[in-house]
């Protein structure tokens, strides 16, 4: 089965139709997605800024990471859950929206960045835990993370515009 066929099949499931047609489900899910954004990117940005050497330079890197990562994880779980429901509501519309496709390509990259940080950079944290300026690999992870998330936020907002029925009809 091709991806498009799968998306078309999803589009006609009763869950998808309910999410799409209910007056409550879609706005509520989008609001949860927004609150999840504040918790996820709102906490991960402090880890990034610490790694970049821009904020909290006097705090231990391990303190910032260990205290904020659980909240970031919680926030991203909320984002994934609500995002999946948003997608299930209009799978075919989103699948055919270009900005959404770019967003879906960037999300795994953000995951790879976190993986790279924990497997290749954070392992030697004991040597630079208290340093204001961390090794370049760490600074790179911070910059990449911030750039990816800001782009993903913008693409997410614009997905809602380009997927909007009024816009699609005008096009």
């Amino acid at each position, binding site marked *: 089965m091709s991806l498009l066929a799968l998306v078309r099949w999803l589009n006609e499931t009763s869950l998808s139709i309910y999410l799409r047609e209910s*007056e*409550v489900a879609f*706005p*509520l899910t*989008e*609001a949860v997605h*927004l*609150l999840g*954004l*504040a*918790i996820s*990117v*709102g*906490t991960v*940005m*402090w880890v990034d*800024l610490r790694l970049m050497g821009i*904020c*909290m330079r006097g*705090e231990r890197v391990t*303190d*910032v990471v260990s*205290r*904020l990562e659980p*909240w970031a994880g919680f926030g991203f779980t909320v984002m994934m859950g609500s995002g999946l429901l948003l997608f299930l509501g209009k799978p075919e519309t989103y699948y055919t929206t270009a900005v959404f496709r770019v967003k879906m390509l960037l999300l795994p990259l953000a995951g790879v960045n976190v993986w790279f940080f924990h497997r290749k950079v954070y392992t030697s944290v004991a040597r630079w835990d208290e340093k204001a300026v961390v090794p370049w690999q760490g600074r790179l992870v911070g910059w990449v993370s911030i750039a990816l998330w*800001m782009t993903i*936020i*913008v693409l997410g*907002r*614009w997905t809602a*515009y380009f997927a909007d029925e009024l816009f699609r009809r005008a096009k």
Partner: protein
Amino acid sequence: MNHLLPQSFFHWCVNTPLARLISQSMWGFAVLETVHLIGLTLLLGSIFVVNLTVLGWGMRQPAARLVRQVTPWALAGFLLMIGSGVPMFLSAAVTYSGSIPFVIKMALLLSAIALQFTIHAGRYAGSAVGKVTAGLALLCWFGVAYAGRGIAFEVLFGTGAG
């Protein structure tokens, strides 16, 4: 809100040059909403971490030191939100004048700001009162965001308000 202020005020708003510019441009409102969202991430991200720390669930450092470090970011976020929020209001003031979610958002915003400054007055540092205030403020801030999303849909708690 149309009972709080005269209708002529809202009509004046939508006729200001800035409001006309936004409503005539195709992407003006969309760009403002995007800026509003980036501002929200900075501001709520700052407040979330600070209030969690006051509650004892956030950073290990003293809350006062954390506040000094995050204030520039919170301020930047706040300026982005005001700088995009006021033009959005101007461009759609007549619509917003009848919006219940908008009135709720403004009420929650004032409460959130008042509670936040109560925490930072410092008298309640580490006390139970301080923690309750931090928790309430956090609820209000998230309520502001929630009601804000509700303005676009004219829906709050699942009931049509528009």
